[in-house]
């Protein structure tokens, strides 16, 4: 080993010039993974450190559609040093003729128990204090701007008038209802008495935050035992922002896997660099063998060098990733809606280092093993490559298993990991096959009559199809990034098209919520009497959770079984109901309660006619029997309930109605104004605005994915540049020979451009194919929407591929074009 180290050290004296691409590929890939992983760790640490503040207390119990009852409140008070009650619901903030949906947070005097509220002026007391009998309120700037409100201006919510006391710049307890459809307004709950917004059956939630020194597990266990049947929901500081945590964890895992895809593309560059390097070492290998070195020694000499280079690239990546995040994080912290604790986190760096070393060696060992198996003379002639020996293959297999196993272990989500890695491997396999097919096709075309008399084209095709072609490197390096862009492009355009084309003709204009039972009849009469309204649907509803199926706690992980769901009440079968199985109950049914369940959801959960469900509604358990299954259409944003219960079963429960109103776009504003004036407690949700929010969110996800694809593309670009750069000596020689044979510089340049364009075109076309396949699968199989091939994004992807390869090719064309043939071709100075 000492001899191998000595020889390796001597070889490395030549410097790292042949390894720039390899090091850059690994550095960028590892840096991306290290940065993403460290950011995730910083956010998780922030959430953990600030858990109590963002929750608003050490622990919280919450209820749906009701406040805590006396017994519950006594228990909460007995367990806490301090308690604060916060109610949340949606309402319309109205200013004259204008109104906007807002997420209302009604708080008590104790709020906030922890942390401070950021206001643009004054104190919290001053902001809430009544002026001329009008209570104060806080509003997020976005909403105040939307309504044209300045501090001191007045607005109404329900029947209650408020004064904008201050703009809320930050709220400490942001974990709760953080991601809503509307910006927030904060009022004192004592000021809502006259608003009519918290009438029985209204859709609101109550939260009781506790500051307590007690053992949280024990307190939680006690709460769940005592109030199990009352619909109590427990959260504590250790998992304060469950949604955020889950989102950060998922997104972090996804981005790390995207980084791994970037490393896989970088691996192509690693393999090319090692192959080129080994080819330059042919004479040395031959000499070592002539001098008596066994193949084991030769292998060790080169393995040591490769390992050193891979370790260097990985180390640089870790430094870059952690360092860049350290620089960027202070600026990023202000933009993120959750706390971040800046620090150096060893686990993500360990993870990135592991990926760098294993991926680097996985890709580097293959060409190394090939070169070592091949005789020096055969290598010198550029003869065909051999497969690595069995021992090397075994090592490669171990590395591959370690990589996949490590990825699963680090991400903690085997489905996401194997799905993403499988997808990347499949795309790489398709790209490899495409690169191979491109070379074959180019070879055939180069020999066809079609190119007779077109030497430039023949040269280009021969270069694409001949030995040492760059086609495979170009298609592999650019293809993956372009494929992701193409898939995003197709899905994005199709989704926008579906929303723009289909929804307006099918979706209602408004959802009206919190219609009290005594208002329902008048509301529907007014709507149907309005000539601009084309259709009105209404349903009585309340919310409840499925807590048992046939007497046992459900074990299935299905969205219908997670938390509270809307449950509709009906006596007669609503118009348009499509019964798939069973029969609707007779009108005026009393006695045993019945439920009509969504057919598809029932099939997914495993429910059948005759099954018994226990529903917890407002803390009360009610048993219902499934007597019919319905086909429910959720795609048109209209009214759709998975569960409809016969009305008598929930007699006495405080319910409200919701209504969907279909009207022409020109009549929407007047309709909204009129409703808000007549029934201030009824909240209207504009479907258009809600869809705009969804589109906004989808755009953000698409942008994030494009950014991730961008990272893969940058690594791909490095690989591409590396491949083109390593081909420069060959092109210098080729250009010189062509000049000897009578080709002008323009003709040679045109041929170089043509071959670059052919390879870029191929990479783009393969990506568009992948984009169409991916887009079709998502639209048809996942979204159940029609798929139309979108030519604009396809043209952009293809032309992007051509332009990038063309630029890379032409950037390196100057040297071959300007090379003097005599100097290049002179072999013996005579």
């Amino acid at each position: 080993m000492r001899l191998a180290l000595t020889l390796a050290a001597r070889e490395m004296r030549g410097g790292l010039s042949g390894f720039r691409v390899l090091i850059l590929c690994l550095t960028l890939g590892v840096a991306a993974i290290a940065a993403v992983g460290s950011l995730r760790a910083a956010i998780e640490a922030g959430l953990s450190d600030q858990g109590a503040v963002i929750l608003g207390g050490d622990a919280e119990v919450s209820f749906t559609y009701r406040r805590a009852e006396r017994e519950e409140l006594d228990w909460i008070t007995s367990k806490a040093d301090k308690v604060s009650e916060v109610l949340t619901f949606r309402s319309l903030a109205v200013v004259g003729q204008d109104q906007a949906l807002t997420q209302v947070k009604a708080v008590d005097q104790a709020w906030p128990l922890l942390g401070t509220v950021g206001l643009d002026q004054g104190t919290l007391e001053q902001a809430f204090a009544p002026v001329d009998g009008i209570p104060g309120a806080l509003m997020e700037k976005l909403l105040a701007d939307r309504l044209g409100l300045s501090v001191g201006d007045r607005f109404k919510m329900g029947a209650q008038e408020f004064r904008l006391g201050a703009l809320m710049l930050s709220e400490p307890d942001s974990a709760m209802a953080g991601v809503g459809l509307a910006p927030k307004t904060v009022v004192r709950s004592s000021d809502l008495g006259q608003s009519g917004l918290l009438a029985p059956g209204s859709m609101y939630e109550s939260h009781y935050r506790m500051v307590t020194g007690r053992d949280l597990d024990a307190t939680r266990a006690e709460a769940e035992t005592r109030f199990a049947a009352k619909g109590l929901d427990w959260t504590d500081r250790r998992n304060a922002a469950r949604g955020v945590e889950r989102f950060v964890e998922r997104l972090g895992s996804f981005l790390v896997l995207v980084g791994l895809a970037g490393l896989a593309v970088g691996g192509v560059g690693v393999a090319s660099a090692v192959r080129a390097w080994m080819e330059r070492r042919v004479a040395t290998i031959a000499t070592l063998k002539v001098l008596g070195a066994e193949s084991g020694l030769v292998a060790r000499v080169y393995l040591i060098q490769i390992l050193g280079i891979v370790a260097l690239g990985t180390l640089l990546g870790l430094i870059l990733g952690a360092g860049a995040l350290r620089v960027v994080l202070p600026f990023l912290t202000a933009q993120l809606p959750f706390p971040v604790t800046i620090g150096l986190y060893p686990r993500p760096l360990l993870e990135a280092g592991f990926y760098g070393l294993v991926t680097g060696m996985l890709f580097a060992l293959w060409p190394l093993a090939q070169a070592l198996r091949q005789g020096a003379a055969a290598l010198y002639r550029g003869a065909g490559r051999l497969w690595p020996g069995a021992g090397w293959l075994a090592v490669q297999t171990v590395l591959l298993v370690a990589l996949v196993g490590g990825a699963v272990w680090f991400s903690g989500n085997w489905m996401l990991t194997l799905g993403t890695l499988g997808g990347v491997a499949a795309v790489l396999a398709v790209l490899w096959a495409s690169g191979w097919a491109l070379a074959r096709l180019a070879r055939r075309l180069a020999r066809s009559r079609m190119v007779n008399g077109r030497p430039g084209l023949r040269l280009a095709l021969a270069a694409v199809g001949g030995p040492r072609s760059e086609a495979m490197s170009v298609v592999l390096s650019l293809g993956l990034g372009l494929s992701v862009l193409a898939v995003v492009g197709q899905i994005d355009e199709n989704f926008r098209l579906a929303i723009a084309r289909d929804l307006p003709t099918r979706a209602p204009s408004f959802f009206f919520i919190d219609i009290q039972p005594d208002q329902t009849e008048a509301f529907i009469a007014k709507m149907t009497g309005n000539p601009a309204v084309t259709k009105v649907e209404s349903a009585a509803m309340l919310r409840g959770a499925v807590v048992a199926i046939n007497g046992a706690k459900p074990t299935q992980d299905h969205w219908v079984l997670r938390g509270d769901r809307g449950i509709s009440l009906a006596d007669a079968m609503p118009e348009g109901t499509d019964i798939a199985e069973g029969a609707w109950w007779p009108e005026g049914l009393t006695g045993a309660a019945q439920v009509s369940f969504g057919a598809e959801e029932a099939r997914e959960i495993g429910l059948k006619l005759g099954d018994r469900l226990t529903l917890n509604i407002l803390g009360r358990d009610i048993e219902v029997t499934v007597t019919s299954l319905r086909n429910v259409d959720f795609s048109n944003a209209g009214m759709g309930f998975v569960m409809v219960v016969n009305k008598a079963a929930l007699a006495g429960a405080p319910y409200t109605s919701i209504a969907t109103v279909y009207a022409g776009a020109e009549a929407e504003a007047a309709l909204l104004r009129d409703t808000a004036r007549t029934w201030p407690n009824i909240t209207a949700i504009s479907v258009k605005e809600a869809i705009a929010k969804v589109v906004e969110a989808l755009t953000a996800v698409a942008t994030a994915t494009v950014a991730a694809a961008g990272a893969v593309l940058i690594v791909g670009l490095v690989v591409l540049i590396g491949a083109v750069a390593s081909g420069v000596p060959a092109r210098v020689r080729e250009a010189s020979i062509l000049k000897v044979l009578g080709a002008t510089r323009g003709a040679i340049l045109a041929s170089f451009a043509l071959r670059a364009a052919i390879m870029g075109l191929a990479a783009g076309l393969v990506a568009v194919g992948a984009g169409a396949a991916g887009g079709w699968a998502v639209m048809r199989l996942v979204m159940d929407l029609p798929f139309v091939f979108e030519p604009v994004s396809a043209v952009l992807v293809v032309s992007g591929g051509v332009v990038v390869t063309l630029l890379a090719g032409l950037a390196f064309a100057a040297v071959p074009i300007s090379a003097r043939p005599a100097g290049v071709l002179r072999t013996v100075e005579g």
Partner: protein
Amino acid sequence: MDVLELDGVRLTLDGNAGPVEILRGIDLRVKEGESLALIGPSGSGKSSLLMLMAGLEKATGGRVAALGQDLGAMNEDALARFRRGRMGVVFQSFHLIPTMTALENVAVPLEIAGVTDAARLAAEELDAVGLGARKGHYPSQMSGGEQQRVALARASAGRPKLLLADEPTGNLDQANGASIMDLLFGLRDRHGATLIMVTHAPELAERCDRVVRMADGRLAPGDLA
């Protein structure tokens, strides 16, 4: 008629240790149809002189004219166009295009010159050098002798008036070398070209009509023509 006229030709190249005078005033005339061998020790300037004759190197002094045209007055592209169909060059290291098959390598100069049935002519040339069965093979799939035969076929495919060869057997064994020389002289006879060849081998030089000896960048006394 002189197909090559060299008057007071000088060549100075920039080396690491400063300018190096490679050729120090060469005067030479070569007649149409003549075969001429350039011999001399390594470093005497033989290959550089051949490169100047082919227009692949620019003289730093004096005048080089080929087929009546002053090569010094032409730019790189004009020189490239001039070589088409007029000159064929054979190198010691063959310099075939590795991405092309034997047939494609031979067809390239014809295609560049705009010859319509380049593939047929290239196939004929390969048949003439005995490689009719290796048309679809890449250079890496052929031996050195075979590669040089392809290079010969490529050089003669355009029926050049001037055939320039730089140590054409330098990388070959004796048997292959002899075979290549037979082919080279056979091609020259067949097409009636003027042949100028750089060689170290006296027995090859003896096959030429005239032998010119070089030493230290000059023609040896008695070889001034």
